[in-house]
């Protein structure tokens, strides 16, 4: 069930909020959490019952493993490796086995490639959350949750399928005192409205033009090629940040505050700053559990560069099994290395130049991220470098169609406050109510007008 569907907005959500409020008020916080857990499992089970079994199996096994992870015990280190390995193996089996076997088949090592499997929704996200918990448990930084709290920590439906990736230390205390209040409801509705508007009005409207362009990437005129890259950049941003906002708003209905995931990334004036603003919870995870354990920036310039490359390559692979994602990770890894080296020179770059270079890297990077193949990515890059010999073409190069959404999206991404800033300014007053209701009304008009609403892009990851 997608957040931006009639079924979710008009049936699932009101029923869940209503049941939670009733249970919390009449029977206490335990009953409220039980309702949330049941709703979360139902939410997940509506996608695929088989994958619900995967989720439940993962929770049960990890709960048992977590119980054995006690700092200072002789077996803890080995058990942690085994536990992390088991989680990565599960992720790898669903997400990477077909790709790897295809590579080995192409190299003549295997006689046949494995078929691609349907990916359990959110497996990339809940695996990372689990790994973080297990590592912290072994370090003595996390108490044992017990099975029911562990289950809710992993399955909490607002952020189950596409994040934000939440840390146990910030989630569990909130879940333990989860409650619904009118103030939280008002704030949640406001943030939900922003997210829904971003997703269905801007991102979904840009999706058509992006799909058209990436289906035929070769031979585009120079400006059309850059417009296409910009179209996808905005579609992805409004799609994923819209989802994150909706998740944040939904969690707020239950008194839970999720961490910020997007902080106006396209305003960044360096690639390093971009990664402090884009998918913040993933960046934080990679920094805390990959980059710093590898040595971070403490072991010399060369080792720092290697660590940055390895971290970003892992970030690329996390998004999907394919050479295009690996290339995307390599581009950002290399850009971060250059960024780091530049910073070491102590020369201050003008903000406008920094922004332009950052956006060039980001837009060029989104090309392989979205392209179906390396060949398609190369074709669009060639067009972006003027390879077609044409500067611009009229409508049939996808300029006019997306223009209103592109302009509105660019203005919102570059000149407006982001949803975190807006939420800080929010007050339950009449003007804010009119804005909230207005955004929801327009967004719902779009929702009702679509027979088959597009899913969120990050559901694929």
């Amino acid at each position, binding site marked *: 069930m997608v957040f931006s569907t009639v079924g979710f907005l008009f049936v699932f959500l009101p029923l869940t909020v209503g049941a939670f409020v009733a249970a919390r008020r009449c029977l206490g916080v335990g009953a409220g959490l039980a309702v949330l857990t049941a709703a979360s499992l139902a939410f997940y089970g509506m996608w695929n019952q088989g994958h619900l079994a995967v989720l439940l199996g993962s929770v049960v096994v990890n709960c048992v493993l977590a119980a054995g992870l006690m700092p200072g015990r002789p077996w803890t280190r080995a058990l942690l490796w085994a536990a992390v390995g088991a989680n990565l193996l599960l992720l790898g089996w669903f997400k990477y086995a077909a790709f790897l076997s295809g590579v080995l088949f192409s190299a003549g090592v295997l006689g046949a490639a494995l078929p691609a499997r349907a990916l359990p929704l959110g497996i990339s996200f809940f695996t990372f959350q689990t790994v973080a918990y297990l590592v912290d448990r072994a370090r003595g930084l996390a108490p044992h949750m017990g099975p029911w709290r562990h289950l809710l920590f992993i399955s909490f439906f607002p952020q189950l399928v596409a994040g934000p990736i939440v840390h146990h230390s910030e989630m569990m205390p909130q879940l333990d005192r989860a409650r619904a209040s009118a103030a939280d409801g*008002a704030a949640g509705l406001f943030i939900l409205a922003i997210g829904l508007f971003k997703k269905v009005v801007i991102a979904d409207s840009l999706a058509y033009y992006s799909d*058209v362009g990436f289906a035929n990437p070769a031979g585009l005129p120079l400006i059309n090629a850059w417009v296409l890259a910009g179209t996808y950049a905005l579609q992805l941003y409004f799609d994923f940040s819209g989802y994150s906002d909706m998740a944040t708003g939904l969690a707020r209905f239950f008194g839970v505050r999720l961490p910020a995931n997007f902080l106006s990334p396209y305003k960044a004036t360096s690639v390093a700053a971009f990664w402090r603003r884009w998918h913040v919870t993933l960046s934080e995870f990679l920094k805390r559990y990959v980059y710093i354990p590898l040595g971070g920036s403490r072991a010399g310039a060369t080792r720092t560069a290697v660590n940055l490359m390895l971290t970003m390559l892992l970030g690329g692979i996390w998004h999907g099994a394919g050479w295009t994602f690996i290339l995307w990770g390599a581009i950002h890894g290399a850009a971060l290395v250059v960024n780091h080296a530049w910073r070491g020179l102590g020369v201050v770059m003008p903000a406008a130049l920094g922004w332009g270079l950052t956006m060039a890297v980001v837009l060029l990077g989104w090309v392989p991220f979205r392209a179906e193949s390396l060949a398609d990515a190369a074709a669009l890059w060639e067009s972006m470098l003027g390879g077609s010999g044409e500067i611009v073409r009229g409508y*049939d190069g996808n300029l006019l169609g997306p223009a209103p959404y592109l302009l509105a999206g660019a203005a919102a991404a570059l000149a407006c406050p982001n949803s975190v800033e807006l939420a800080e300014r*929010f007050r339950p007053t009449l003007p804010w109510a009119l804005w909230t*209701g207005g955004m*929801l009304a327009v967004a719902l008009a779009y929702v009702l007008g679509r027979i088959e609403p597009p899913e969120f892009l990050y559901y694929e990851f």
Partner: protein
Amino acid sequence: MSSDRDHRGMGAGWFLVVSLALALTPLVVGLDGLGFGPADAQFWWSDRVAAGVEGKAARTEGRGPRVIFVGGSSVPFAVRARSLEERIGAPVLPYGLNAGLGIDLIARGAARLIRRGDIVVFAPELQHFRSEGTVNPALRSDWLVMRGMEGMEDPLGHAPLRQWTALRSRWSRYRGQVEWETYAAIVRAIARLKGDREWMQFPGPHGYETRYVDDDGNVTFPRPGPRSPEQWGAWYVLEVAPENYDFEGSIGVRTLEWLARVCAERGAMLMVMPSCHATPPWVGPEFLERVSQREEQWMRIADRLGATRLLEPGATAVGADGAFDSFQHLNDRGAAAIEERLAAALRGVVGEARASRE
């Protein structure tokens, strides 16, 4: 963040009431889908097919008897007009448009072409007899606005129940652009400005671009072999349980009755046949049996109305290797198989019709 109420505030409770009331406006008034221009890009494909067949009808007037096929998009995918007319010695007009328009709308368009002595072959798709109706309101209202259609009792009727908000309010984009002339004029102007270029760029190698429809309304892009199973689509056709169908008051039955009257008034012969389809490789013989049962049900109504059967239930099915990209869309091999059957069935009919004219 504020507390429940501050000195300027209305209170969180009232905030929720006001914003939710405003938010639910689209649901209450039926406002859905914003913007101008054809809401469904598929309009252009059907428009191009219809324009082609209409042009051919004008060019062949008086050269009767002509064979006019009326149905969904299965018609142009199954009927190879040029080779069929060489084999039967009569002009063939395959008036088959996107089934989502509704068979009543399609039949009214085809009826404009019918002349005395013509042979009208009604080949609706099974979905047109479903009790819920299978109308695409966006496509239907695009058609009404762009091409106009007189005499429609309920132009936006027959839509699935879940689309009731889209159709029950004049604030709806669909109903609004049909019923508000100013809105319709704006839609037409923008549509003409944009043309069908948007549709022609639609991604993928499926060939549904308007440039693959020739001046006679024939689908010309090569369709060599069946697509992969995921591309079969049209799963609703597989729901062939009798309770899903209405053989008394559905859009298909009412259109059949209406077309029988039109043919009688114009002196044309009405024939019927099930829509052509391929057989998905994963279904057993019982599926085809159920399809044939449903086809037999509506053809019995046609019998009572005096229509003649051109092909019997089951005779319009081809194997899985005859599919192009869906249950109803045949590839070259499937169309060739159907042509054999149509030619054999039509030769005698055309001969008799010609003899009676003379």
